[in-house]
């Protein structure tokens, strides 16, 4: 199987890449920090192909598209994402522009190009990583929440047109993950042990890609939260304010 994955060097992307390589697949691993992928590339004897690209930059995304031109993929995971947490009006405009570029413009651009240039073969799967915030809102990260909601609805919109080409679309809504990224943006005193390990999440995602599942709320915590949000959405958003926004001491972006 030939796989394309963005944000492959760290966190969830790293866990997915390692699992896919262990299963013997060819992985085009995209990240702005490819040094972290060098050891994997050597160990996998070339099955891992690191590609340097910064999703915040339009030209960089263009270069990525040129580098993978002519290839077709069986699995594409648009995973790269960043965040900005704190008081909405205090975070600089440039941080929001970067956040929207990485979390939204890049995945939509890449997806539409892959579709338009017929780089997704029949029976292939296109995976978007949204967030559990799609179900509960995220006071203290309203722009992050906006990008993840937008991505989820983009995925929903293209599902039917892609089904005609026999390409499946899976959207994942993970809750907090035990990564450095989550650590930086979590409120002080939040317990890391309550976050899902990237390895377990990667296993959930890869399992779902082999089924016809359209949306994945991985793990019991995420599934339960989604259920509660369906019953009392406003209450859940209020709770998010109390457990997250009111405990954020700093703006992190």
């Amino acid at each position, binding site marked *: 199987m030939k796989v394309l994955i963005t944000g492959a060097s760290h966190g969830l992307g790293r866990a997915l890449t390692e699992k896919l390589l262990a299963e013997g697949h060819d992985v085009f691993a995209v990240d702005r920090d490819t040094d972290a992928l060098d050891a994997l590339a050597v160990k996998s004897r070339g099955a891992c192909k690191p590609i340097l690209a910064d999703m915040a930059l339009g030209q960089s995304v263009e270069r990525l598209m040129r580098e993978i031109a002519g290839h077709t993929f069986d699995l594409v995971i648009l995973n790269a994402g960043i965040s900005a947490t704190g008081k909405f009006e205090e975070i600089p*405009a440039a941080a929001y522009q970067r956040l929207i570029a990485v979390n939204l413009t890049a995945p939509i651009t890449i997806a539409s190009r892959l579709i*338009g240039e017929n780089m997704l073969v029949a029976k292939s799967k296109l995976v978007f990583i949204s967030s559990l915030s799609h179900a509960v809102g995220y006071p203290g990260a309203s722009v992050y929440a*906006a990008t993840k909601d937008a991505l989820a*609805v983009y995925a929903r919109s*293209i599902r039917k*047109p892609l089904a005609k080409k026999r390409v499946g679309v899976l959207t994942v809504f993970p809750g907090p993950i035990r990564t450095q990224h989550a650590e930086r943006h979590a409120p002080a005193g939040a317990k890391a042990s309550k976050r899902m390990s990237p390895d377990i999440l990667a296993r959930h995602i890869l399992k779902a890609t082999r089924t016809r599942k359209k949306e994945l709320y991985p793990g019991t915590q995420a599934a339960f939260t989604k259920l509660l949000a369906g019953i009392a959405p406003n209450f859940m958003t209020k709770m998010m304010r109390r457990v997250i926004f009111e405990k954020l001491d700093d703006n992190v972006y």
Partner: protein
Amino acid sequence: MAQQDAGALNILITGATDGLGLRLAKFYAERGNFVLATGRQSITDDEAFFGTDRIRYIVADQDNPNAAAETIRLSMTRLGWKSLDLAVLNAATGWSGAPGDEPSATVEKQIAVNLTAPILIARAVAPFLFEAEGQLTLIGSTAHRGAPMFATYAATKAGLHGFARSLAEEWRGRARVQIIHPGPTRTTMHAKAGMKIGMARLFFMGPKRAARAILKSIRSGEKTRTITRAYAWRALFSPSGRGSL
């Protein structure tokens, strides 16, 4: 612009040269409020264009979100505004077609105009809104739940919806945040997005009625509203006072 009248409100409306934005701007100005209207085109005579001296027009092209937000902030300061009672962020652009045919430049443009710009404008006017305990009204679309033939447009509107939801909670007690989703309306929007509507146009809501419905929803301050025909019909019978929303 004339001196501040007692009871008159300061109101910002983006995308106000056309369609719903223009109707909202005129409505509020006619009721004695001061309106800062934005758009892309240059207008030499504000008063002749809008038919009132209570609307001040500035060019703020949301293709460049940062510049648009800064221009708006500077203009409010120059007008001597210390507070903002209502910001209606209405400007938007669309593109229609199959997802694989969508040019990257069009993806970027829709995200800039429909999502990044309102976010940066909200950020720029936040201190003014807090001063008045005012209201931020975002204009979404019923497409925010997903639409195969305008996937990116739908995504930007879903982004606005999510932004409003989280920010409303974050700003609770300081300023209201609201999102209104109008359904298909007989404005120039669809033609500009390259859509051929044909007979379906007959089923679209008239712009006058849609504007009345939006005004009613703004007045109520409710967090979220989808403009259905039933709601628009009820809006015809709702009163509207002078010098207030």
